[in-house]
């Protein structure tokens, strides 16, 4: 390893930033935020450097850092970057300063709040770059701690219940996953994702499980059990219907910046897990269970959209909308697993679905974070009110706020010309080509999404101006600068998505080639 | 003829008297006197065993007793001083009142 350890640096910078921010004297107001923002911008710059250094012509791991770490467990310190990781690293780099600049809770110890956000960023970077289960799992679990503290300490009125539910639920899923990986380790002696993917592709993993354990079960059943455990861990994180009940509560209770990170980054860790672990290592199992999995994805899409229709709290609506959008990612992922006749030789459907999933991951992170930020801005103006019926006619007093939030809402409902459409189009295109029925079943989700998002526009922004809010201030210059980059990106990706697609195109191709 | 037994019996009686005084008297001074009696009986034993022992010419027994008497004198002095202090503390010389070591 001769090159400079850029990836480790990427993980270390936010963690160092967290320490510095925590130690910043809180006497000068705003200093802590500035320090934290400074560090997050350094991470963003580094992520951009990675993008420049990244060779998008190959789909293999790049800038790999690997040395022996725990020989007894055959676990190396193994970092690597491919298109998927880079995409998510970029997303993390963008979302974190955005979340830091969003309205922060006005309590004491704000520096600790900013420090925890940075710590969370470090963990997330680690999870997106690790190629070894032990290491990955470490970051995966460690990310829970700052998230828990952020919700528990700075959240809304029922923050305690929400934080505990979030923590315990996710942890329970993680334990199922850990057990699954222990079984794999005992059977193969491996923790490395890439080596395991190789085994999974050849079907050797199932055989190894069958050799190691008997339990009077067929190797296929064992494989399904192990894959099921890992699925459970990831499903809670994403979340997949019906493991999603922690999410509305956690998103609603968390302070604005944390909601943004939860929806923008932590949920992406789950999707990343599906793409990095479940799909490459357990292709047989995913294929065997494809129909129920697709049904789960469809249920995630439709039920969350319907549930959003019944909510009256803006944050809850957005939380359900978030589940709904992640449902499209799952739909694409599970559709990709379809067994394709090798004679057909046309991978266009799979490529479309997987590209769509990648794009959707990025787009949803951006758009959902922006929407939570806007709700936070509204909340900061209304003194904590965020009910659907608490407002009305805000367009009159805050046209810029409403215009920009309107753009974000339309981006969320997949209006062409904005970022959401490209990903959804590709997902549906691919899914329809692979498993038509699932695409058709999921289609009503698109309609219901439009209904509840337009309802926000209608109830909050339109109608006669509510007399309580005649003095509601529009966005200040600083706030405009906070949200403007996100909105600009929405337009850019919506109109010209080619750079983003080029970034992960080879990864998509390689991932698909690895599937049986 | 005076035999060893005679002295020993006297000494034992003396010791018993002293011990009885120590056990039964309530006045601290009386207890001190009882202790002196017990010391005297020990001294008597020394002398008796010396006189009737294998080497009556060496003055070992007398020397022991002389030391012992000197120590007894010092002990009496210290004892009396302690008693005075105890008296000052408890305003009493009755042992019933001294139960600080009670378990």
């Amino acid at each position: 390893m001769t090159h400079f350890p850029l990836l480790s640096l990427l993980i270390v910078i936010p963690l160092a930033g967290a320490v510095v921010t925590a130690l910043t004297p809180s006497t000068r107001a705003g200093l802590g935020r500035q320090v934290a923002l400074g560090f997050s911008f350094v991470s963003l710059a580094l992520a951009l450097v990675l993008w420049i250094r990244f060779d998008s012509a190959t789909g293999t791991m790049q800038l790999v850092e690997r040395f022996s770490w725990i020989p007894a467990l055959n676990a190396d310190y193994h970092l690597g970057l491919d298109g998927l990781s880079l995409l998510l690293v970029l997303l993390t780099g963008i979302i974190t300063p955005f979340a830091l600049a969003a309205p922060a809770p006005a309590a004491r110890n704000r520096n600790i709040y900013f420090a925890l956000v940075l710590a969370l960023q470090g963990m997330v970077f680690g999870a997106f770059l690790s190629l070894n289960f032990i290491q990955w799992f470490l970051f995966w679990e460690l990310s829970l701690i700052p998230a828990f503290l952020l919700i528990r300490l700075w959240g809304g009125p029922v923050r305690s219940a929400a934080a505990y539910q979030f923590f315990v639920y996710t942890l329970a899923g993680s334990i199922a996953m850990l057990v699954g990986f222990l079984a794999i380790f005992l059977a193969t002696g491996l923790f490395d994702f890439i080596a395991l993917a190789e085994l999974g592709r050849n079907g050797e993993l199932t055989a190894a499980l069958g050799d190691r354990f008997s339990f009077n079960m067929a190797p296929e059943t064992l494989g399904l059990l192990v894959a099921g455990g890992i699925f459970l861990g990831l499903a809670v994180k994403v979340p997949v219907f019906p493991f999603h009940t922690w999410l509305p509560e956690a998103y609603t209770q968390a302070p604005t910046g944390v909601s943004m990170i939860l929806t923008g980054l932590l949920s992406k860790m789950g999707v990343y897990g599906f793409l990095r672990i479940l799909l490459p290592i357990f292709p047989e199992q995913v294929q065997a269970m494809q129909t129920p999995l697709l049904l789960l994805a469809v249920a995630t899409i439709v039920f969350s959209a319907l549930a959003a229709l019944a909510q009256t709290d803006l944050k809850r609506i957005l939380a359900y909308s978030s589940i709904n959008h992640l449902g499209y990612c799952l739909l694409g992922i599970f559709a990709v697993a379809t067994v394709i006749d090798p004679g057909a030789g046309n991978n266009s459907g799979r490529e479309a679905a997987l590209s769509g999933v990648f794009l959707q991951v990025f787009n949803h992170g951006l758009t959902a974070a922006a929407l939570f930020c806007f709700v936070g801005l509204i909340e900061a103006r209304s003194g904590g009110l965020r009910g659907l019926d608490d407002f009305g006619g805000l367009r009159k007093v805050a046209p810029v706020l409403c215009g920009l939030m309107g753009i974000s809402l339309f981006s969320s409902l997949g209006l062409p010309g904005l970022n959401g459409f490209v990903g959804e189009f590709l997902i549906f295109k691919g899914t329809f080509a692979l498993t038509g029925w699932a695409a058709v079943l999921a289609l009503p989700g698109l309609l219901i999404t439009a209904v509840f998002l337009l309802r926000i526009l209608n109830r909050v922004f339109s109608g006669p101006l509510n007399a309580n809010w005649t003095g509601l201030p529009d966005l200040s210059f600083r706030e405009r600068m906070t949200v403007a980059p996100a909105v600009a990106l929405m337009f850019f990706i919506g109109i010209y998505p080619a750079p983003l697609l080029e970034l992960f195109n080879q990864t998509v191709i390689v991932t698909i080639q690895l599937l049986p | 003829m005076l035999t060893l037994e005679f002295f020993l019996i006297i000494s034992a009686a003396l010791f018993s008297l002293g011990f009885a005084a120590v056990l039964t008297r309530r006045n601290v001074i009386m207890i001190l006197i009882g202790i002196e009696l017990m010391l005297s009986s020990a001294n008597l034993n020394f002398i008796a065993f010396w006189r009737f022992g294998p080497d009556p010419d060496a003055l070992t027994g007398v020397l022991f007793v002389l030391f012992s008497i000197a120590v007894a004198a010092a002990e009496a002095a210290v004892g009396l001083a302690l008693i005075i202090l105890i008296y000052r503390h408890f305003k009493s010389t009755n042992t019933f009142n001294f139960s600080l070591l009670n378990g």
Partner: protein
Amino acid sequence: MADHFWISHFLWLVPVVPLLAAGMLSVSGNSRRNRAVILTLGAQILSFILASLLFITVIRAQGGTEEVVRLAVNFTWFEFGDTALRLGLLLDPLNAAMLVMVTFIGLLICIFSVGYMSRDPNFTRFFAFLSLFSAAMLGLLVSNSLLLLFICWELVGLASYLLIGFWYQKPSAAAAAQKAFITTRIGDLGFFLGMIWLYRETGTLLFYDGGAGLLEQAALHGLATGTTIGGLALSTATALLLFCGAMGKSGQFPLHVWLPDAMEGPTPVSALIHAATMVAAGVFLVARAFPLFAATAGPDTVATALIAVTWVGAFTALFAACIAVAQTDIKRILAYSTVSQLGFMMIALGVGGVAAAIFHLIAHAFFKALLFLGAGSVIHGCHDEQDIRKMGGLRRFMPATFATYAIGMMALAGFPFFFSGFWSKEEILHLAQGWPASPIPFYLALAGTFLTAFYMTRQMVYVFFGNYRADQASSEKASESRPHESPPIMTVPLTVLAAGAVLLGLVATPAWPWFHHFIEGGAATLEFGKLFTAGTLGLMLLSIVLVAAGVGAAWFLYARTSLGTAERDPLERKRPGLYRALAQRLYVDEFYDATVIRFHHAAGRAADALDRFVWHGLVMAVSGFSVLLSRASQAVDRRFFNRGFDTGCETLRTSGGRVSRWHTGNIQTYLAYIGAGLVLLIVFFAWIQQA
């Protein structure tokens, strides 16, 4: 041929120019009124000039050949995997004609709006939205890719949403905007599905791509021969899905409900978007994808997809015309009339007359824009009154508006010979008559013709004849509330449109079917003899009779009685039940409220309850069970392990206490123990000695 097409390199400019204007306006402040006007009008004029140049280029290139001129410029949008997703722009007679129409009417309506919106506080934003709409609509017309068309299709929907809800402070406007967006989106889902289906089957979304396009022979053949669920040909299934989108956008039954509500928007918007251009996008889509719709047609058989189009169109044409008869809002009458006329266009498409449909579309765009702007002028003049029962006698107050409105009305009603509407409707009826599948759509269309004449005459009588009725209500303020003629900036566009409504008829008479040949290829020759062939003449006479009957019946009913808010409508006096049903729009909205909307709310609540109670309940049950377990374990600890240990400790403590009683603290007692011990020792030793 290529040298004719130098202009096609600037095809992309047609939509981009207004888009730039929209972008610049949306970031500029509301106070910059003059700049907004200059930017919008400048962009519209530039687009119009470009469109005209393109139109002329196409005419010259076509030059009377049988082949339809078609020029496609394709480019890659992005690549995914090994596949490149390509979009493209297209220039052919169909969209060249549409481009001129859209830019021309758009320009006139922008001019009209400068006057109409002059007092609105959000003047700049209005023009930004209007420019956005123009850009999207023009993009829709020039796209050579189903995907690009869909993108623009959604964007015109967005512009429509924004403009219907332009007066967002009115709850009814906001609700109408939402309803429009969502209703059209229902259709758009079908469109979307059809699009990805076509993509799956053909691997391309380009219409024309040098033989590899969607609408070219190879792909169509594959689609027409492949079958899917229910034995439908693939082409039929996908065409029907695309038609769902067209039904939503063009307000065909049962997705027509949004269009009358869309009249909540400012009147120029109703004229441009909800009468002339956007609602015609559905017709344009069917016309554009016509080869797909007609793919299964044999020499003697009719394509299944087109049968559906015809029936939907015919039913809508009559259905909406019926409802229009009993409306009292000036704009709603026109809205239902639009729905009905769009039905006529669909009939034309269904029976195979693309040129007829497009000609009716363009003619309708002119006279319906004229009527809407006239209605806008009336509303403006009557101080924002829209109820025709409170108008009356306006021909004396607003002569220019009256004259132009009358021309529009006659064109719409199909007055013979001098109006474009007559010729376009004639051609549709002619085609419908010859449709082999069924004669019923022809009769439905005839009934629609009669009703059109009827409701338009009714409206004219209510608005322009008789006495001004608002005076009766508030006579004290009569002088200041008198209706007034609109300023020239509003009447000049009316005049231009009226001229268009009349003159346009010249290019599509049976005697000189220039337009027909322009769209479908071939050379047009002037033959007056064609006017007098038996079929043409008979049908012409029939429709003249029907129009005359419609006008006469309405005049007979309405002109001779007193009208007003207090009076019941003459028709209501005769047929109260029928009239009420029609006035209530045949209860379609109520039906949707009771079924679809209620179902969705119920489903939403059910999903919410499912979440709150079932899934959350399960989680709570699991966590409750865990808590229960821990309680049990705690109880075992407390009752069992802890108690044993505690008892041991207690025993030790009490026994220790008991022993400690021996420690009296009295030295003499201790000494006594020692003494006793001594005695015991002595006894013991003595005993040993003896033993």
